[in-house]
């Protein structure tokens, strides 16, 4: 009982700390590395939720593919610092006051979300239903009930691939 809760708090702390580091400092490379830590924490939470396949896919696809793509882009553009140019500072939206309003909006959003979510009656996860976590069941549902969405996904991926090649592969202006 309490052991579950302890593991939850450890992984939740990892996820939140990683996300805070992503937002809280200026070097994009550190942001990418911090988000890897955050997603590994989330992966642990998926294991705790008895969804091991999602946890493994999270590690392989997110930290293995998507974030490596981000890392390549950061290094390719040599963007190790945020721009400090004066047009950055002089824009009215980026004076200190409006920036704090942005942070304030995020805090208000957090308050609303937490208020709304704590109104749900808090039964323990998985006390009512047995876990449906086998990869066999997952594949069967994915390839029967969600067949159409699955096929549409392949079209989306082709469109994204062609779009990325066209946008980034252009020579000159």
């Amino acid at each position, binding site marked *: 009982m309490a052991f579950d*809760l302890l593991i*939850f708090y450890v992984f939740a702390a990892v*996820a*939140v700390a990683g*996300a805070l580091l*992503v*937002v809280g400092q200026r070097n*994009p490379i550190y942001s990418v590395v911090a988000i890897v830590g*955050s*997603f590994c924490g*989330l992966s642990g*939470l998926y294991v*705790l*939720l008895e*969804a091991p396949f*999602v946890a493994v*896919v*999270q590690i392989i*696809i*997110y930290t293995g593919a*998507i974030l490596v793509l*981000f890392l390549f*882009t*950061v290094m390719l*553009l040599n*963007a190790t610092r945020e*721009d400090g*140019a004066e047009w*950055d500072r002089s824009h009215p939206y980026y004076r200190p006051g409006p920036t704090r309003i*942005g942070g304030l*909006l*995020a805090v208000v*959003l*957090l308050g609303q*979300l937490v208020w709304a*979510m*704590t109104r*749900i009656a*808090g*039964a*323990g*996860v*998985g006390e009512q*239903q047995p*876990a*449906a*976590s086998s990869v066999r*069941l*997952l594949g069967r*549902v994915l390839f029967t009930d969600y067949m159409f969405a699955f096929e549409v*996904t392949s079209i*989306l*991926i082709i469109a*994204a*691939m062609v*779009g*990325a090649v066209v*946008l*980034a592969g*252009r020579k000159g202006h």
Partner: protein
Amino acid sequence: MVPITHYLVLSGILFAIGTAGVFLRRNVITLLLSVEVMLNAVNLTFVAFGRQFGTVDGQIITFFVMTVAAAEAAVGLAIIIALFRHRESLSPEAFTNLKW
């Protein structure tokens, strides 16, 4: 057992951090990373509710969200590279004109 409220509040915290990142950072790459944080917060909600109701639908929707995130990252980073070639900058301020 961990109450589902814990997962939902954690998801809300992560989503709010992602929102704050979109508002506060001045680097388009970090903006995209903040969007990824928000997508993952929603993924956590899907998986938690799927476990709560004992179905696999939450996990399957999570796969679709991951696919969309991958497509978004690929196209977004390609756009960033194309923009960087024009302006030598990664600040969103540099890209406020639709044409130059």
